[in-house]
């Protein structure tokens, strides 16, 4: 099978901090991602999810192994891998529409075309009326929607999302999940989505990858065969509940390990 993205025995060891021991954040991990896959990576806090995603983005170097995108080794960050961060990273000096246009300007897309694309994505994330607001004038959810629009407008090969809704309340979070899923169902991007919320992991995914407690490695890899388009009511369907029960067990075992280690 030809992978869109191949994480090939990637590991990461952080050097010792002030007389401590080196931290093995990620154990050699292999994961193949097919074109149009929506993969959610589920794992307890501190298990190396962000580290793995940053390595795929090219923002961090693996201690061992390599990442291949379309067969080419990733050596640094690039526009082919769009990223939405765990923290709010909109450029505070740019308006919402300028933020969304950032990557397009960087690639030299002409002004007119740029405006069309920005308008289309602002429409899609429901922020048309906030085009000229500065990030400070937006709520957290709106900022993350802008960040998603900013990443998507750049038309990346693969979209990396690091707990993008982690700081949002449950209701907003549910709406954002549907919004992102709606966009994915239409555009069929290849997505890697990190979360520690089990329901979110199932609802969004075509495949859920469970990571073990630190040092992180892949503990389970489950396909999610729920039909598309998905609707929030699905979260109470028997299939969904069964999957959730199973993943809860997996995660609980890992969380226990963390708790006992401390």
């Amino acid at each position: 099978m030809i992978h869109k993205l191949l994480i090939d025995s990637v590991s990461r060891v952080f050097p010792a901090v002030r007389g401590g021991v080196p931290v093995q954040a990620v154990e050699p991990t292999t994961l193949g991602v097919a074109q149009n896959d929506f993969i959610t990576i589920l794992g307890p806090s501190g298990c190396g999810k962000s580290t793995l995603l940053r390595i795929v983005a090219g923002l961090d170097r693996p201690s061992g192994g390599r990442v291949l995108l379309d067969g080419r080794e990733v050596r640094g960050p690039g526009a082919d891998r769009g990223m939405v961060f765990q923290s709010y990273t909109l450029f505070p000096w740019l308006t919402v529409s300028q933020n969304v246009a950032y990557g397009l300007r960087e690639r030299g897309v002409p002004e007119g075309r740029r405006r069309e694309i920005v308008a289309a994505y602002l429409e899609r994330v429901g922020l048309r009326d906030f085009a000229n607001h500065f990030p400070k004038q937006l709520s957290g959810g709106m900022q993350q929607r802008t960040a998603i629009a900013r990443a998507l407008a750049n038309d990346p090969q693969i979209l990396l999302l690091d707990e993008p809704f982690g700081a949002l309340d449950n209701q907003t979070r549910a709406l954002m999940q549907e919004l992102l899923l709606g966009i994915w169902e239409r555009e069929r991007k290849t997505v890697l989505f990190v979360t520690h919320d089990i329901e979110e992991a199932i609802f969004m995914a075509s495949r859920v990858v469970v990571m073990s407690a630190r040092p992180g490695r892949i503990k389970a890899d489950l396909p999610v065969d729920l039909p598309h388009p998905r609707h929030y009511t699905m979260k109470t369907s028997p299939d969904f509940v069964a999957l959730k029960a199973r993943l809860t067990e997996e995660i609980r075992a890992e969380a226990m390990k963390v708790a006992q280690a401390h």
Partner: protein
Amino acid sequence: MPRPLEPVSQGTRLLLGTAFFVLFVAAWAWATFGGYVSRTFLADPLTMLQDGWVLLTRFEFHIDIAVTVWRVVGGFVLAALLAVPLGIVMGAYKSVEAFVEPFVSFARYLPASAFVPLLILWAGIGETQKLLVIFIGSFFQLVLMIAVAVGQTRRDLVEAAYTLGASDMSVVRRVLVPANAPEIAEILRLVLGWAWTYVIVAEFIGSSSGIGHMIIESQALLATGQIIFGIIVIGLIGLISDFAFKALNRTLFPWRLA
């Protein structure tokens, strides 16, 4: 009782700010008119105003003011033109920082006023020497403070730019510079204030014009009213330039307040 960090209204702010000036002048008037301080050492507010009026109408003090302002602005603009780019490059590229920073840190502590005699030997007592004093006084401070500000740019913003396809050059131009522009403007405002102290010292020695020159002449005449008038003029110019800088920053960087 006001609580910590509780904001006050614009009106209250103005009232309180003015009140301090009024109290200050009142205390001064009380000390001088009441005879608690000898006239020889400290003129009273009215004498100060009279002396100021005489300075302006008979001794063309406004020309001295203009000369001093020009020196400060000239020397400062020169320093800023070189220091801002260098500071940004230093903050952005750690190898440049490693190369330049130790020397700049050292040079920063060289007192600009101590260079006055040396600069007179090198550049004479013309305008070049005055500009150089201010240049030396502000350049190293600016470079270092700007480099620190740029070096502290939020890493996640830089990373976000890279994942959007930015090149190294464009990260400097389109992230490091705009992210720190307000901070840089603030540093310029601060250091401009310091430049005023250097210019006065430079004008004390070997100068035939400027506010500092007038002050040193007045000392020989024991004209404390004139000295105080000169000092207050400097303060007022500082206050005005400060306001102008703040207003400019507000219009240039609306996203800061938004």
